[in-house]
């Protein structure tokens, strides 16, 4: 069957050039046939005239046979399509007004979809770049119970997975690493990864210069080597090949630079900035019993050909169960799941990792639904335009049907016109998406955008094309069916271009308006909720003052990081920066509040007996004297840390009010004691700080404590500088002071506290802005839709209005009648929209801050806004109706 079809297509293709000749041959053949039939008839004794007549009757239509053969010699479907396209384009070009409005409307709707899909594509769909066959890569996670399934794994477990599961071609381990690079007299903090020697071969990443890391680099006693990213190579080393093989200082230690990774390889993960270097993963002592409990590495594997994810998961689970039996202390469940092996999960490698992937999908789903609504509204508008046009083309269709055109054929032709419109809209949409691709990165932290690629790829184009075709069918099918409905008589009888199918057509357009109003109301309510949420969040009481604070991060590495040197460095830095002009106060902190990080420690509070199973891991921070005044956090009691709190002196701590309420039952905590872990030294509470926000805006009051840097040294600190004027001025001064103090210490993450907080609201802002834009677009489209329908109704009823006027109707009555009819449709849509919005916004509850998902103020304001716009859209055509001159109106037909 298949071969027969193939052969037929080939034969037709081969014969195409001589199609005319074939037509002539057929004519000759038919003529011969006729003559033979006539001769036969003559032989049968008929008169020549009768012989000819009978033969002609018997053989039937020559033209039909010729036409049929002609069609069969070509590709009739394609040829019809080509003809329909030409005809469709001609019809569309003849009505430039209609066509441009329809195309523009569709371009908006399709463009919104293409833009959001571009975003989803960049975040979720694009495979890991720069690696071979990314679809065969998987990540392997060990559950750490406290935070779900996707935790790190231990090195000894990795070795067992690698050696005992044959579902994988190979498996590599890596962990994030940080290093300070000193090169050419300039220090820079780099993010990178420590990886096993097979990492690059597992991923299939080639070097752009030199070599990648190799399994031989894992051997004990192998020299320290480093591979750098292409972007670092270009940025810091001027793409100099001569440097390969020379030494490089990282954290004050000498490495040999052996190669540069391929340009398009930026690590496997988004989110943290892409790695700039790769060094060997230090192999822990696998014999040590602690090694299995230390789950700090990530595992990436490549599935063997033909192996499914499920098979791989099965093997890994079997290994995990074996390990749990063998090493129950480290590999058996704890706390909430005793007696179960720790789950180990194999997931396809994605750029965000399984947890962020899920979170981003949620936001993306909201946005995709939103733009789908916008598209439906746009399609409803175009469908309405088409219906109006179809009714003016009623006669054309009726004539063609009467002349024997198949209805299917006509529907196909009308649909082709719709598809022309849709594809033109799609092209416009792609242009809009290309333009917005440049705007989208503003919604993301700078670290992320470096690795995000918003450019249009085949997925975006394919998506846009399918959306265009789909919308073409969506807005084209009903009008096409409606236009070709075969009740010819009234249409043929009708004299001019007057519309057909009056009442039903109108009820359909009304339904479209109802849908438009309802959908745009839902979008606007969503936009309103996110706007209010963003404003609430931005003005939330953080209990610290964010304006005029400069943040700069420092991390001492290598020898510099030793406690005695580090303490001196930070003390001197704080003094020097404090002495800069325009600086009010300076503090140091391990963590900047609301920047995403956190530290929790098991705590024992003297005199407090925890309930069984109570979580006594308490959030904390390491700060220097001056931190509280730099952030403007008032102390409710006691004192700040000071010069007297030195290493070796009595241990001190400052707690917050919630801590005091919870663990000291609200009695004054000053002088009370606590300790970190159960063996740490006792710390005396010397101050109580006001509660503030620590980890995120949505958190409930958290118990929290601060310990002084002098007694709890950490090598990485953030400098917080409160300035008189704009903090940006202080940034270069702070950098200069760090340089003067120690040239080898890089400053990074410099910015104002305001900026960093607004980065914390990035998702909220993105949703608020995008929903407002789309909600606004929906409102405009819906208004245009209402306007169009009312205008058309006015035109249709010109005669009736004329009669009313002639009979003494007042302009006011006409106005009321037209506006009233329009608004009744709007109110139905509005009510439907309100009900749907009430149901739908519940989904958003977890994304909102400080606003209920059914916030009456938002709902009310949006309803008023929509009513006002709809009134305007009805009023304009209604006013035109009042200007109808009864005389011309009555003469109209």
């Amino acid at each position, binding site marked *: 069957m298949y071969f*027969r079809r193939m*052969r*037929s297509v080939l*034969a*037709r293709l081969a014969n195409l050039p001589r199609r005319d000749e074939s037509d002539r*041959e*057929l004519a*000759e*053949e*038919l003529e*011969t*046939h006729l*003559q*033979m*039939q006539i*001769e*036969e008839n003559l032989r049968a004794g008929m008169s020549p005239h009768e012989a000819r007549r009978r033969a002609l*009757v*018997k*053989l*039937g*239509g*020559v033209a*039909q*046979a010729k036409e*049929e*053969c002609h069609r*069969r*010699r070509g590709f009739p479907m394609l040829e019809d399509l080509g003809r329909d396209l030409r005809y469709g384009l001609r019809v569309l070009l003849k009505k430039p007004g209609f066509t441009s409005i329809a195309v523009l409307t569709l371009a908006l709707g399709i463009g919104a979809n293409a833009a959001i899909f571009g975003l989803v594509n960049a975040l979720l769909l694009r495979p890991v770049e720069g690696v071979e066959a990314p679809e065969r890569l998987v990540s392997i996670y060990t559950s750490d119970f406290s935070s779900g399934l996707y935790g790190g794994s231990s090195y000894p477990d990795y070795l067992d997975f690698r050696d005992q599961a044959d579902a994988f071609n190979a498996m590599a381990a890596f962990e994030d690493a940080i290093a300070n690079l000193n090169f050419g007299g300039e220090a820079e903090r780099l993010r990178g990864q420590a990886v096993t020697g097979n990492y690059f071969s597992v991923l299939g990443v080639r070097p752009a210069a030199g070599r990648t890391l190799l399994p031989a680099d894992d051997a004990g006693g192998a020299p320290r080597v480093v591979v750098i990213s292409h972007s670092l190579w270009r940025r810091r080393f001027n793409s100099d090949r001569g440097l390969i093989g020379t030494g490089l200082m990282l954290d004050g230690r000498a490495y040999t630079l052996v190669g540069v990774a391929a340009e398009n390889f930026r690590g496997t993960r988004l989110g943290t900035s892409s790695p700039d270097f790769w060094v060997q993963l230090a192999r822990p002592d696998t014999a040590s019993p602690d090694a299995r409990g230390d789950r700090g590495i990530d595992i990436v594997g490549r599935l063997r050909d033909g192996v499914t994810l499920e098979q791989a998961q099965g093997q890994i689970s079997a290994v995990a169960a074996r390990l749990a039996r063998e090493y129950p202390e480290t590999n058996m469940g704890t706390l909430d799941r005793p007696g179960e092996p720790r789950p180990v999960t194999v997931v396809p490698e994605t750029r965000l990792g399984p947890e962020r992937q899920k979170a981003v999908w949620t936001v993306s789903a909201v946005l995709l639904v939103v733009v789908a609504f916008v598209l439906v509204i746009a399609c409803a508008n175009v469908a309405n335009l088409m219906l109006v046009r179809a009714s003016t083309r009623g006669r054309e269709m009726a004539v063609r049907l009467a002349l024997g055109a198949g209805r299917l054929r006509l529907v196909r032709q009308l649909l082709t016109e719709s598809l022309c419109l849709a594809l033109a809209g799609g092209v416009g949409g792609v242009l809009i998406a290309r333009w917005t691709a440049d705007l989208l990165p503003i919604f993301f932290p700078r670290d992320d955008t470096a690795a995000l690629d918003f450019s249009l790829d085949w997925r975006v184009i394919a998506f846009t094309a399918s959306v265009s075709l789909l919308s073409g069918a969506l807005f084209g099918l009903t009008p096409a069916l409606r236009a070709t409905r075969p009740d010819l008589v009234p249409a043929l009888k009708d004299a001019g271009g007057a519309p057909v199918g009056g009442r039903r057509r109108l009820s359909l357009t009304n339904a479209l308006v109802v849908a438009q109003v309802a959908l745009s109301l839902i979008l606007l309510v969503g936009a309103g909720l996110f706007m209010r949420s963003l404003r609430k969040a931005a003005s939330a009481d953080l209990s610290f003052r964010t304006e005029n604070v400069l943040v700069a991060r420092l991390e001492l590495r290598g020898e510099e990081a030793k406690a005695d040197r580090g303490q001196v460095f930070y003390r001197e830095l704080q003094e020097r920066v404090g002495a800069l002009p325009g600086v009010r106060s300076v503090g140091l902190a391990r963590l900047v509040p609301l920047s995403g990080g956190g530290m929790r420690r098991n705590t024992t509070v003297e005199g407090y007996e925890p309930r069984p199973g109570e979580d006594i891991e308490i959030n904390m921070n390491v700060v220097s004297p001056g931190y509280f005044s730099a952030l403007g956090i008032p102390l409710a009691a006691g004192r700040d840390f000071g010069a007297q709190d030195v290493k070796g002196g009595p241990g001190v701590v400052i707690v917050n009010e919630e801590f005091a309420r919870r663990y000291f039952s609200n009695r004054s905590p000053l002088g009370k004691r606590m300790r970190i872990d159960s063996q740490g030294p006792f710390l005396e509470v010397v101050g109580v700080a006001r509660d503030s926000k620590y980890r995120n805006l949505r958190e409930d009051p958290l118990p929290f404590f601060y310990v002084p840097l002098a007694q709890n040294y950490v090598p990485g600190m953030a400098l917080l500088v409160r300035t008189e004027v704009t903090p940006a001025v202080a940034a270069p001064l702070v950098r200069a002071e760090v340089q003067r103090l120690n040239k080898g210490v890089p400053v990074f993450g410099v910015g104002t506290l305001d900026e960093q907080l607004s980065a914390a609201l990035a998702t909220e802002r993105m949703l608020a802005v995008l929903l407002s834009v789309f909600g606004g677009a929906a409102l405009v489209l819906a208004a245009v839709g209402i306007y169009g329908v009312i205008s058309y109704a006015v035109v249709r009823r010109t005669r009736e209005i004329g009669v009313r006027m002639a009979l003494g109707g007042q302009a006011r009555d006409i106005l009321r009648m037209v506006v009233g009819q329009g608004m009744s449709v709007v109110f139905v849509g509005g009510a439907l929209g309100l009900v749907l919005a009430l149901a739908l916004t519940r989904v958003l509850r977890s994304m909102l801050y400080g606003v209920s998902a059914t916030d009456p103020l938002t709902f009310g304001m949006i309803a008023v806004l929509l009513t006002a716009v709809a009134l305007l859209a009805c009023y304009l055509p209604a006013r035109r109706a009042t200007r109808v001159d009864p005389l011309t109106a009555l003469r109209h037909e």
Partner: protein
Amino acid sequence: MSDKADIWQGTLALMVLKTLEAMGPQHGYGIARRIEQTSGDALSVNYGTLYPALLKLEQEGYVSSEWGVSDNNRRAKFYKLTRAGRRQLAEESREWERTTAILARFFTQAEEP
């Protein structure tokens, strides 16, 4: 014309192939007459059914055609069966016999009480 059965499109192709097998190379008129005669003039073959069917068979490679001279010295296009056509005919005949045999069994069964 109206008292004669129209030809079911699918079977016409089979009749054409069978006719060519029986008669050897033949022109369109010859094929049409033979089909009509074989059917005992129960069938009538007109332009609109015969020539599209011939074209289709040719495109599928079951028949080939060339111009020749008829018995009455007329220039005519002669169709003949190709090897693929012979195979196809054998296959479709088998299929046809099978179908009719099955149907026949239904009808004989239905007549039993």
